């Protein structure tokens, strides 16, 4: 039983990190109908800025997070304006190609600027080392990741359900044309949501840097995982993304505990099974 709890905690930590990074992708996909394969690249940029801030500039962890999130948003907004906006409404293949091209560029630039080796983000004293939970020790940064994920989920829920912006966001997701006709500034909503999505991705990249190490191929390596989360959870659905992350985190972690040599085999089998049974995702809405 203790083992089950133990595996569950690990699954929760991994799932939460995935959630924080992927929720932004789910929102942009649901809202702007853009298959953005460059989302992982933004998480990576956040990680790199934080790493640079702590190593080269000597900032503390909290300050580094703020700087990294702000920096990533500052980079992402012009990229969205100039490049991604051009493929709204384009066929899916075009969006895939554009965003893959963007990802390749970012990988190349990251390698050029920071080199091909792993970058670490040194944790503050409070988050280093193990925390004794009684039945086992767990890395403190994992508890922090779980807390951040929960906080992000709560904050998003509050934003979407309880604020005026949330109302406008939901309206734009459901029927953009009608919302625009009713006076909702959809362009603004898109821009703001994109900024929030990218900021969350950067935050997730930093918080999850121990689990998903920062190196130039990060953008491509975990892109598949983020895409899987969004397609399993259903684009545009926050509870769907949460369920998907936890489910996939559980499958992956349990698989790695029970049969590590089979590794990703079970994960991808599960993905095929879920997507086959729920083509719009677990909690996604059917698109017209």
């Amino acid at each position, binding site marked *: 039983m203790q083992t089950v709890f133990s595996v569950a905690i690990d699954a929760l930590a991994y799932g939460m990190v995935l959630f924080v990074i992927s929720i932004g992708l789910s929102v942009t*996909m649901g809202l702007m109908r853009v*298959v953005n394969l460059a989302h992982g690249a933004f998480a990576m940029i956040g990680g790199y800025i934080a790493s640079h801030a702590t190593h080269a500039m000597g900032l503390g962890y909290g300050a580094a997070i703020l700087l990294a999130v702000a920096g990533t948003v500052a980079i992402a907004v012009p990229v969205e304006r100039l*490049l991604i906006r*051009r*493929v709204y409404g384009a*066929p*899916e*293949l*075009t969006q*895939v*190609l*554009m965003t*893959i*091209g*963007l*990802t*390749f*560029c*970012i*990988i*190349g*630039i990251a*390698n*050029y600027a920071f080199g*091909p080796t792993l970058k670490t983000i040194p944790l503050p004293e409070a988050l280093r080392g193990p925390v004794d939970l009684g039945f086992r020790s767990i890395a403190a940064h994992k508890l922090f990741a779980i807390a951040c994920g929960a906080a992000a989920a709560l904050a998003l829920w509050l934003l979407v359900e309880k604020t005026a912006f949330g109302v406008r966001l939901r309206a734009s997701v459901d029927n953009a044309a009608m919302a625009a006709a009713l006076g909702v500034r959809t362009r603004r909503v898109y821009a703001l949501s994109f900024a929030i999505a990218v900021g969350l991705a950067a935050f997730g990249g930093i918080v999850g840097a121990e689990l998903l190490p920062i190196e*130039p191929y990060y953008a*491509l390596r975990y892109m*598949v995982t983020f*895409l*899987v989360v*969004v*397609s*399993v959870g259903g*684009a545009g659905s926050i509870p769907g993304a949460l369920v998907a992350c936890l489910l996939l985190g559980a499958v992956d972690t349990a698989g790695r505990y029970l049969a590590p*040599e*089979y*590794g*990703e*085999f079970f994960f*991808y*089998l599960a*993905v*095929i099974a879920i*997507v*086959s049974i729920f*083509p*719009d*995702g677990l909690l996604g809405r059917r*698109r017209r």
Partner: protein
Amino acid sequence: MTGRRRKAAALNPLLRDVAGLAAIVAVAVAGYWLFPDNLALLTRIIAMALLVVSLDLVTGYCGVATLGHAALFGAGAYAAGIGAVHFGVTDPVAMVAVGLVAGALAGLVAGVVMLRGRGLGQLVLSIAIVYLFHEAANKASRWTGGSDGLAGIAPDPLLGLFGFDLWGRTAYVFGVVLLVVVVALLRVLVRSPFGMLCRGIRQDPVRVAAMGASVDAALVRMFAISGAVAGVGGALNAVSTQVVGLDSLSFTTSAEALVMLVLGGAGSLYGGLVGALAFMWFEDFVSSVNPFHWLTVVGALLIAVVLFAPAGLYGTAARLLGRLGAWLGARLGARR
């Protein structure tokens, strides 16, 4: 239209195809004479070109975006390799046949699985398929050599006369012949009613279904054919490089194939060939300078193609030539 004009119109596509095939042969011969030390690279380009052409069938003609097509290529490569190493099937033509069948089967499986999804889900299914094939090949190391790769593939001399040596001449000629045969057959296919149906599916699947045709059945059939072509490419790779590695089943190979297709222009088969040649030649050249900048260049190229030349190199060139031809025709017609 007069009878003469109608006949000319019917002859036109046939002439174009013959011209296209002749162009391929001409380029191949030029390659043989101009780069006698580089034939191994050129043969690898031909194998990749077959993968890109098979991807074109599914993406360019049927409109299905997939990032998992290397699974079919790798299936053919491994089948040919396993046949040679474990079952003694060392005749090169037999190896290619084995690859063809394996690729077709893999294509069938991929098609059936992928059709369960829509939009992003379909894309994710394609990625899951290629990763699954990759993991399966990795685990079945007794057959596939696992991460060490399948080495020791020793094909017999072609036709009993021409051995596969270090200089790669036999492999190159073999590859060119395969390529010409495959492209010829495929050109016939895309002009057949089946090919038309697939193009209709790309443009409007709902309408095609309303017409009474089965969209899924057509797509699965196209996937099988596409798999066969990819399998031939994989087998060619196994025969010429005599080694099969896990990278032939990788997501990166799939992504690169898609890049090559888009670069050259989807939907015409020749675009795929142009894209593969241009991309791999460029890669060989730039990689020796600085391999990591290569990724940035590819990314920038991709963005540029998407924004400015969505029809790709071949597509844009064809369009320009078409316009030039029409302009010339108008001037000449006016003269008369």
